[in-house]
């Protein structure tokens, strides 16, 4: 991917990357991406997004703290309610099954869970992580704004040859992360991390086929 990366190429080549090459991400590239991403839209131009990008020692120190701490209870927010999300749960399980099949891993639930926890805490060894948070006063439409900003960042990173993995998982350590960053837990909710780095082209975890619903099940055209 280069500066000639089209939007289509960026959208289609973006995937959650779960194995990164051991190669640092230059600050200049990230500054440029974050600067351009300010033009993401938001209702009423609120621009509700805020974030911190960590690399090197501050990132490692935070990950060490997470390893030594159990996930917080209560949760920062509910990812989804399994009671009412049967279809969605099926899609989630499908991704998990496809991913582990690609990795050629057959294992019991316990080992799989331990692996899931430790690799997520390490942000899949990505050299940089964007931590995303915003004021608690924001409602569901502003979460959508933050989503627009995040996808803008992820597509701009593709243009720079970089890959990402959005990690709602990290909200299990929301308070710890905010404390590490000096962000107020009272005023701000933590949403997610975005692991950032160069894709490990060899690792099968980055190569399994991801499913999407067929277009006709999501879209109705009227009047055409």
């Amino acid at each position: 991917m280069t500066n000639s990366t089209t939007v289509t190429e960026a959208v289609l080549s973006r995937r959650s990357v779960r194995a990164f090459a051991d190669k640092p991400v230059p600050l200049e590239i990230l500054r440029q991406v974050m600067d351009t991403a300010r033009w993401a839209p938001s209702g009423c131009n609120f621009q509700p997004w805020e974030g911190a990008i960590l690399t090197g020692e501050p990132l490692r120190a935070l990950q060490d703290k997470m390893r030594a701490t159990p996930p917080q209870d209560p949760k920062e927010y509910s990812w989804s309610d399994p009671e009412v999300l049967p279809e969605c749960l099926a899609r989630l399980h499908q991704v998990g099954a496809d991913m582990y099949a690609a990795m050629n891993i057959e294992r019991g639930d316990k080992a799989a869970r331990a692996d899931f926890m430790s690799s997520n805490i390490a942000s899949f060894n990505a050299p940089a992580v964007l931590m995303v948070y915003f004021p608690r006063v924001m409602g569901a439409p502003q979460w959508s704004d933050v989503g627009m900003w995040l996808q803008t960042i992820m597509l701009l990173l593709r243009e720079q040859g970089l890959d990402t993995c959005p990690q709602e998982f990290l909200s299990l350590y929301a308070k710890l992360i905010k404390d590490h960053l000096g962000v107020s837990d009272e005023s701000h909710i933590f949403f997610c991390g975005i692991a950032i780095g160069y894709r490990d082209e060899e690792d099968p975890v980055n190569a399994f086929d991801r499913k999407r619903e067929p277009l006709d099940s999501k879209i109705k055209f009227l009047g055409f």
Partner: protein
Amino acid sequence: MNVSEAVASRRSIRAFLDKPVDREVLARVLAKAQRSPSGGNTQPWNVIVLTGDPLAALLARVAEVIPQGLAAYSPEYNVYPPELDGAYQQRRFGVGDAMYAALNIPREDKASRLKWFARNFQAFGAPVLLLLHTKRYMGPPQWADMGMWLQTVSLLLREEGLDSCMQEAWAVYTKQIRESVEIPDDHIFFCGMAIGWGDREAAINRFEVPRAGIEEVVTWQGF
């Protein structure tokens, strides 16, 4: 068109050319947008795309109730947080002020401002209106997923030379939308997106929209 150009050239377009949009183009864009990410691969977005007669019928239905003012409003969620501190109010009013200044409408001319606001409900003359809805049980993280999808669509539209305007404003006429198109009762209506060929010469499409500086958004550690 590369990603940077699409991001930089996307803006809320509020005047469109009288030129239709092919269904094939929209189908191509929306098929690609299926690759937008979502937590747990939930893909919470559901979409109705209107043009021609069905769109005209919706606009006419809403036009009937606009004179009733706030009494006709039926939003199913709060577009703005009820409590908002000054900095965000500033950002909100900043866009309005810049827009009305570009149109030479003074602050005290409420009637002209309202008339322009009502253009929301003609989809600013766009030939296509997309309506986005999702299951009511979806929580805020799934609304973030819908946002990722919306921005994916708006950038793919730029690549096709098309423009858009995301319109939460439609939420106030959810009742009339439900009368005009089929949205299941267990779904919530989120927003519209006007789609078409922007009239880039129009003053309303040319004013400068402010954004916060990068230092207000991001902090850096370890670089």
